[in-house]
């Protein structure tokens, strides 16, 4: 096991990693920008090294500074957290070249999954379902008709050279196809000077469902069930839950088998997440995240495992100490991301925390680096806390979440707590009837 781990991140995830290290008896090195000199994880870490000025490119994205800090403090391993350098294959490679362990997958797997086309190709070959389509230009209407029948309606005709919704038409059945095909080509030609189009299946009300996996260096792979992250605003996840209200045990088991078998064949190592769109009983792979995710605690709450601890153990070469059959997913968990933002306008709201009082009691977990008197810097991401609640059933979890949200006090800045308090009272959320568009529609941001 490692003696000393350097935490190449900030905020709640840096604290999260610090906690896992302490519980393994590992010493911690916090690296921080000058803006974070007073941060909680800096105060708690065994050692702290200032690596640069506030802009992330000069500090948390500064590979040389972080590796130098690891060298001068004698750290054995680096945990990158999420964001920043966590999916940077160059960084992972540099870390390894300095004889330091990168707590994550191999640089090659990071590279592969970082290239979305390559990732999709790999997943198709490994038997993971992706969004079906023409896989290339569709030169005439006959081919389009044939593909439409194969793929199943609705289908989307998309400009190859396009973007921004231009040159994009939906056909809900074969009758609409001719018009959509011609319309898309015409629009594409006019907009981009290139009328080459593709066809793929159109998902109009998908959920975002992702599977958490763990893989060790000895060929063992397990999945820890799914997370439903469909509640999004501007492609940012707002609230996540596990299990998904949309899946049953058979679907979970079946898809779990598909992803574990794929990653076993791939020779993947450490934690990873396969993200899918899910609609009408079918999964469609979007991308794979080769790192810890923000929402990992909902999985921890239902499977009882500490995912950061598992990441560290795997990186140290230890085998996963259990099989898929040993993993029991129990009860229900929900995570609310609390951002330092105006809950109506979503304008950032950095500043000094006045009162700070997190909720406590049974089934309530708070992952946050906030404290009374802390100044939320304006330089970084606005997420300042995660409230995670567990219950034996989804209903118990929801009732507990409501009372915990009502107890949570963060003064001095605006936060999205009021948004969450409203959200957990809506009939659609209570019934689990939502897709990736629902939240924005409910908020009046989208028709």
């Amino acid at each position: 096991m490692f003696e000393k781990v350097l935490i190449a991140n900030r905020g709640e995830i840096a604290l999260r990693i610090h906690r896992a290290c302490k519980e393994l008896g590992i010493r911690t090195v916090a690296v921080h920008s000058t803006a974070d000199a007073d941060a909680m994880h800096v105060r708690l870490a065994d050692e702290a090294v200032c690596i640069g000025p506030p802009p992330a490119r000069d500090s948390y994205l500064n590979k040389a500074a972080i590796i130098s800090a690891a060298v001068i403090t004698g750290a054995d391993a680096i945990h990158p957290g999420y964001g920043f350098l966590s999916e940077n294959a160059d960084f992972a490679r540099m870390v390894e070249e300095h004889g330091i362990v990168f707590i994550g997958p191999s640089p090659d797997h990071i590279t592969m999954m970082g290239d979305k086309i390559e990732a999709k190709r790999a997943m198709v070959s490994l038997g993971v379902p992706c969004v079906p389509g023409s896989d290339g230009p569709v030169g005439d209407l006959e081919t389009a008709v044939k593909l439409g029948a194969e793929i199943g309606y609705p289908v989307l005709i998309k400009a190859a050279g396009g973007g921004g919704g231009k040159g994009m038409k939906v056909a809900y059945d074969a009758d609409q196809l001719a018009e959509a095909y011609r319309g898309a080509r015409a629009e594409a030609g006019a907009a981009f000077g290139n009328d080459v189009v593709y066809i793929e299946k159109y998902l109009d009300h998908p959920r975002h469902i992702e599977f958490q996996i763990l893989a060790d260096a000895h060929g063992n792979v397990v999945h820890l069930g799914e997370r439903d992250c469909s509640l999004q605003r501007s492609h940012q996840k707002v609230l996540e839950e596990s299990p998904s209200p949309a899946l049953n045990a058979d679907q979970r088991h079946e898809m779990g088998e598909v992803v574990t078998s794929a990653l076993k064949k791939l020779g993947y190592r450490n934690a990873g997440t396969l993200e899918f769109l899910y609609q009408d009983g079918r999964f469609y792979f979007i991308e794979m995240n080769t790192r810890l995710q923000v929402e990992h605690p909902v999985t921890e709450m239902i499977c009882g495992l500490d995912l950061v601890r598992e990441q560290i153990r795997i990186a140290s070469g230890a085998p996963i100490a259990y099989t898929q059959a040993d993993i029991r997913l129990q009860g229900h968990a929900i995570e609310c991301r609390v951002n330092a933002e105006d809950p109506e306008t979503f304008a950032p709201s950095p500043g000094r925390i006045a009162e700070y009082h997190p909720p406590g009691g049974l089934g309530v977990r708070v992952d946050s680096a906030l404290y009374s008197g802390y100044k939320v810097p304006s330089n970084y991401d606005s997420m300042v806390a995660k409230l995670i609640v567990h219950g034996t059933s989804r209903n118990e979890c929801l009732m507990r979440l409501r009372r915990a949200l009502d107890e949570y006090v963060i003064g001095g800045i605006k936060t999205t707590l009021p948004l969450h308090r409203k959200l957990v009272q809506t009939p659609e959320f209570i019934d689990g009837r939502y897709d990736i568009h629902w939240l924005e529609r409910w908020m009046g941001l989208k028709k």
Partner: protein
Amino acid sequence: MPTKNARPEFGPSSATVRRLAKLLEETGLTEIEYQDGTRRLKVARGTLAAPAAAAPAAAPAARAVEAVPAASEGPPAGAVTSPMVGTCYLSPEPGAPAFVKVGDKVREGQTLVIVEAMKVMNPIRSPRGGTVASIAVENGAPVEYGEVLLVVE
């Protein structure tokens, strides 16, 4: 009036407290704690208007590399700070004389020390002409971003 007891008055000297209070003001610090063997003295000043920052005093975590207050409070006048994390060397190679010593006159642009990072030797040059008033680091010491290396006045 001084107390005349056999056992001397227990408590710090007023002069010391006044001196440290002045230092707090001057440096913008909120707390100075000093210990020498079993003797310890701490003075603190809460932010007068703003609420006393209830900073979690990380219970027992001792730090090997202490966060440098200079980074957040601003370095003293004339200070030359490290532009990067690394290892600081006072001379060009082991055994060679130091680039500069206290009292030396230096030109702007003259190499003062070297900071090694990622196996690259980065000469740290004087931002101005002047006299080396003090050297804050030892040869071979790890330095962090913003750490004071020496003072050129």
